């Protein structure tokens, strides 16, 4: 970027009538990092990046924070925080105040924390029998309002479960009464530990607020150990660790650059672009770790609340549907992903091959992933046009739910850091939440890792991981601005895709800092 462009874009930001003061400050800061030189990458990598075959999520030229940080809140509560001069809390009120102080000091690429803790476990010791459910609800309600107003970003995410707890039940009650977009919530489900009526309580909450997301706890534990959490747009990572960065590869664009057979794609074209994506990841990781010295200097690291050995990077893919359909068409076949057994089989070959390649490409400072990137089914950003998020079936082209699940489920085991498929349920489910519980249990038996439901007619629109209210989108359309940064991203997607008018209320995951 030259100085003239910098000036023009800065000018546009400061004069933008729909952005609030804080939103302008954050965007100006992001703009400034674009004046810093990009980490050194090869010409071929740069070319693929410029053509957006591969993508750095617009994180900025010189990463100076890890993208996804999962502080060990339980340890912080236990030991207190030296840097922030916070002693260990002894009451529920103190613990909630402690957490809020900590949240506003946890960095991320959006400037807002993407992980707010496994709240049931973090607060468990403070919820004594002296505190009634009504008192607990009142305290969490105040806390919830504070989270939404102080951290106005729907990527801020907390986890609950798999065991039942008073905190979890209270959170669901508060959620249903407040109906806020923030925070985002995941319920960890273990078929042996999570009672049906807790899952059903979660389902009833989905009907009101589009939350929680459901994750397959045993599957996550197998990949990450007990200390994991789903954060931001449903990225599953290690607690006390996280992801340095997220790079992604557009499988549609890769397929468009391919001529030849399917085997030549799998063993020639695909490996070439996987390596370019990996090169980009490595350059960004080295920049963060070796040039900006994030893990040597940040207080979360020096106080032992994060450990670089519990970090890795996320290798995202998207556009599988278009990739498969293009490869089918190149063979003179018209079968489509989600509707044709051969197309579905091909989709599994592509994902399996990417998984092999990523698992064979060592990555520095990625001990959290055993020295390799985590594979991730990436759910899109608002600049993605004519390409389907992650490994999803294109919006509007989904088959019935059973076929939808059986098409998507085989992919899930490959994506340790999350998939986040979305299923659409109609309003009749509201009178029969057990039906949704049945589907959740079945989906986990089928090997699904994580997914969420969207209810038709809900005021909330799920973008991918994050939620917005339709009324907030309408306000942006009327040029009156938005309190949540994520609403502005959603408005961009809505303008492009009109997703709120589609069968499935989904937009696309937006984790980039907008230019």
């Amino acid at each position, binding site marked *: 970027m030259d100085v003239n462009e910098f000036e023009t874009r800065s000018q546009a930001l400061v004069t933008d009538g729909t952005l609030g003061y804080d939103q302008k400050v954050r965007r100006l800061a992001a703009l400034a990092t674009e004046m810093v030189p990009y980490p050194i990458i090869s010409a071929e990598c740069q070319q693929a990046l410029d053509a957006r075959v591969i993508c750095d999520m617009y994180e900025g030229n010189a990463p100076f924070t890890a993208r996804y940080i999962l502080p060990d809140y339980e340890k912080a509560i236990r030991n207190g925080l030296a840097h922030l001069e916070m002693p260990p809390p002894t009451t529920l009120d103190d613990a909630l105040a402690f957490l809020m102080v900590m949240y506003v000091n946890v960095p991320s690429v959006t400037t807002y924390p993407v992980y707010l803790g496994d709240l049931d476990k973090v607060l468990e010791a403070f919820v004594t029998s002296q505190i009634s459910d009504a008192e607990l609800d009142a305290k969490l309600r105040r806390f919830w309002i504070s989270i939404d107003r102080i951290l106005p970003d729907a990527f801020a995410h907390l986890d609950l479960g798999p065991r039942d707890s008073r905190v979890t039940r209270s959170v669901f009650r508060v959620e249903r009464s407040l109906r806020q977009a923030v925070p985002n919530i995941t319920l960890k489900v273990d078929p042996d530990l999570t009672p049906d009526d807790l899952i059903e309580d979660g389902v009833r909450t989905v009907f009101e607020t589009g939350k929680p997301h459901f994750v397959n706890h045993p599957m996550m534990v197998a990949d990450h150990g007990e200390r994991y959490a789903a954060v931001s747009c449903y990225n599953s990572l290690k607690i006390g660790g996280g992801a340095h960065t997220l790079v992604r590869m557009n499988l549609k664009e890769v397929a468009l650059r391919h001529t030849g057979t399917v085997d030549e794609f799998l063993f020639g074209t695909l490996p070439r672009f996987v390596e370019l994506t990996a090169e980009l990841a490595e350059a960004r990781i080295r920049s963060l770790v070796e040039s900006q010295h994030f893990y040597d200097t940040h207080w979360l690291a020096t106080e032992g609340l994060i450990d670089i050995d519990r970090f890795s990077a996320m290798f995202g893919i998207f556009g599988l549907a278009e990739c498969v359909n293009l490869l089918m068409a190149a063979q003179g076949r018209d079968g489509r992903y989600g509707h044709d057994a051969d197309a579905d089989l091909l989709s599994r070959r592509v994902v399996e091959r990417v998984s092999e390649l990523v698992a064979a490409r060592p990555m520095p400072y990625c001990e959290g992933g055993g020295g390799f990137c985590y594979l991730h089914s990436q759910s899109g950003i608002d600049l993605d046009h004519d390409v389907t998020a992650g490994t999803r079936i294109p919006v509007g082209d989904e088959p019935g739910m*059973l076929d939808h699940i059986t098409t998507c489920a085989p992919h899930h085991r490959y994506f340790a850091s999350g998939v986040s498929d979305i299923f659409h349920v109609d309003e009749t489910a509201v009178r029969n939440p057990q039906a949704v519980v049945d589907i959740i249990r*079945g989906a986990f038996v089928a090997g699904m890792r994580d997914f969420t439901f969207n209810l038709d007619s809900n005021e909330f629109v799920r973008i991918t991981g994050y939620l917005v209210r339709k009324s907030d989108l309408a306000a942006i359309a009327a040029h009156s601005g938005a309190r949540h940064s994520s609403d502005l991203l959603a408005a961009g997607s809505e303008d492009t895709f009109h997703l709120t008018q589609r069968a499935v209320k989904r937009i696309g995951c937006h984790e980039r800092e907008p230019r």
Partner: protein
Amino acid sequence: MTTTGSVASTIAFSNVDGPGNRFVVFVQGCNFDCVACHNPQTIPVFQHGHERARYQRSVTDLLTEIRRAAPYLSGITVSGGEAMLQPEFVRDLFSAVRDDAALTQLTCFIDSNGASDASIWDLVIPVTDGTMIDLKCFDEHIHREMTGQSNELVLASIERLHALGLLYEVRLLLLAGVNDDNALLRRTGEWLATVDAHMRVKVIGFRAHGARAHDPPLVEPTPERLQAVADLLHTIAPFDICVI
């Protein structure tokens, strides 16, 4: 299992045909000819020839479909058409589900108009977990006008299935100006309360979509009217009422 039945269609997932998520078999053929039927194509009973053959499905074949959906289900429901026109098929389908190691967790429900006598029900009762019975109208005369049949067997079925612990729900399909008179609904509620004061009652408003044209046109009750009916029924007994 080589038993076959006349089947109009199946759906893998339904959340409106009994408790939880259910696989539904819609049989072909009904002994009622309801003016308000929203699946009128399932009414004709095909006894002969290629028309009959077109609808024949074997229990074995259906079991293959059910097994695929089973991990996601609370159970299966046979709906219609009228399930009890093919009691041997229903019996053999349910028996096969019960005997299949992969399907033992599934419950087997019947959605019926109730117009079958006890000897027919006896064929399926040993393998049935629950029933949902439509009561088109408590008034015999209006019932005949609406369905072409008496309601005598329907009322007897409701009483008997309840006594056997197999009545999951009674459904009242309301057509504005036809069977939604307050005095009639009060009588209906009083009779239902003698069967079970805590009965699950589903109050369903007629919807013109899918139904055949009628002269004069059938009228959909308003949501407010349906709620008023629920309120009225609640004054009679503590029914578990669901309005849709």
